[in-house]
């Protein structure tokens, strides 16, 4: 989850040998107190390394690979699978793509330039990514490999969060590119993870009308469930206010 401060100092020496801590904070936009606290505690967050490496023009994935826990990120990675690429397209973009398909509206003329996809991550990107690479046993293998309790893992996915460590472990357990999960969590961008520009659009276009419609339906159904649950919670809260507020 975090990186040892000693290793971080050593890495920083290599990246910006002359710079003071204050310089590093100013350039990378990290609050000085935040970094100082992380150094005092001996645990530097992964986002700190990402911010600093971006500020110094280094690929954050390569920067992470300098640390023991993430060494394997430096190995050549397989390109993202089609399922992964599509999982990183927001539900709104998917629905728009459905509507743009000629099958939806036979009378319309094709040929409009499709609107650009909003960049990953989206509101449910973490859960969608894990679902996309899950062969049914991935969650099990991740919890066996990292020792995280399955319910804690699920809770992170539901909250659209995943620590960098778990994201890499999940990718490893599923046999996909190790940096792919970091894209889904929004830690690094698609480009930084080595995804080809336009890969998501290409994956989307390669889906048949039927596959796309079913996928969009699944997303809508999941969204509906979440919304309904939130509405129920809200209604229950309102009732408590009404009676006890």
């Amino acid at each position: 989850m975090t990186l040892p401060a000693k290793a971080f100092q050593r890495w920083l020496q290599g990246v910006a040998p002359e710079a003071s801590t204050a310089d590093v904070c100013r350039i990378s936009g990290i609050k000085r107190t935040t970094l100082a606290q992380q150094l005092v505690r001996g645990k530097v967050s992964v986002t700190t390394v990402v911010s600093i490496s971006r500020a110094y023009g280094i690929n954050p994935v390569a920067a992470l690979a300098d640390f023991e826990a993430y060494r394997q990120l430096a190995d050549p990675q397989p390109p993202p699978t089609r399922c992964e690429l599509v999982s990183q397209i927001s539900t709104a973009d998917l629905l728009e793509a459905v509507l743009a398909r000629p099958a939806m509206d036979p009378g319309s003329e094709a040929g409009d330039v499709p609107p650009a996809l909003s960049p990953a991550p989206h509101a449910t990107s973490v859960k969608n990514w894990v679902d996309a690479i899950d062969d049914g046993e991935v969650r099990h293998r991740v919890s066996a490999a990292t020792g995280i309790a399955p319910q804690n893992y699920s809770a992170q996915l539901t909250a659209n969060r995943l620590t960098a460590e778990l994201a890499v472990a999940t990718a490893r357990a599923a046999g996909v590119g190790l940096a792919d999960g970091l894209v889904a969590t929004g830690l690094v961008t698609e480009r930084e993870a080595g995804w080809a520009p336009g890969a998501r659009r290409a994956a989307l276009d390669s889906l048949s009308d039927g596959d796309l419609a079913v996928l969009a339906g699944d997303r809508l159904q999941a969204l509906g469930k979440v919304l309904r649950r939130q509405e129920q919670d809200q209604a229950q809260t309102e009732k408590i206010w009404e009676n006890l507020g």
Partner: protein
Amino acid sequence: MIEILQWSTLATCGLIAAARVPSAIRGENRSLFYIFALMTVAILLSIEAPYLVVDAALGGVNLANLLLRFIIFAAIYFVGIRVTRGFGADHAYRLITGKTGMAVLLVISLVMVGVFFLIDTSGSSAGLSAVSGKSERNFVLVEYYGAAGRAYPSYVSLVLLPAMVRAVGSRLPVLVRLAAGLLAVGGVAIALTLLFPVVPPEWGAVEFIINYTAVLCFVVGLALIWAARVRSRRRPGAPKTSTEM
């Protein structure tokens, strides 16, 4: 120590009741104001000095103690109604307001009043401690009288307990869950008062602590729900934005 607990409980309760006056005047959930006001009066009557003053006015035969018991009954009844309504515990609501609840209340009240008039109650004394010491017969009767007085609050709080435990584990706002937790602790404390007859006399302080813990938990719990509502009004729409995604 016990004096401090008594007066600080009174102060807490009185302050909350006073704080609810404006909303009671506006007509928002008046019954909550009544609950806090009744509880304040009940705590006042359970403290020696004010008790003696009130009882003197009622003839000095400890009628104030009987009054105190019924004030507690009324307060806990309203708490039961409001809380079961608010938390949507329909079964518990029926157990309090339905035939069972009414039968329990009636039987306990009759027994309590009956026993009270069997006691030789002359000589004002808070908690009937001096009355109890008069004779062996009085001692036994006061024990029964006390047990009857604790029985109804215990019944209501035990009825509330399952719904509170459920609410603690729910997805309601944190403050509401905290409040439900406090109400649950208060409920357990009230139920524990049923065991007072088997508590050795030298542990008398424990009885006081349990009593006031129960009252404090209920009052602070109810006030927390109110605070949660005020807070949710200050940032309108905050919990709703996620529903509108």
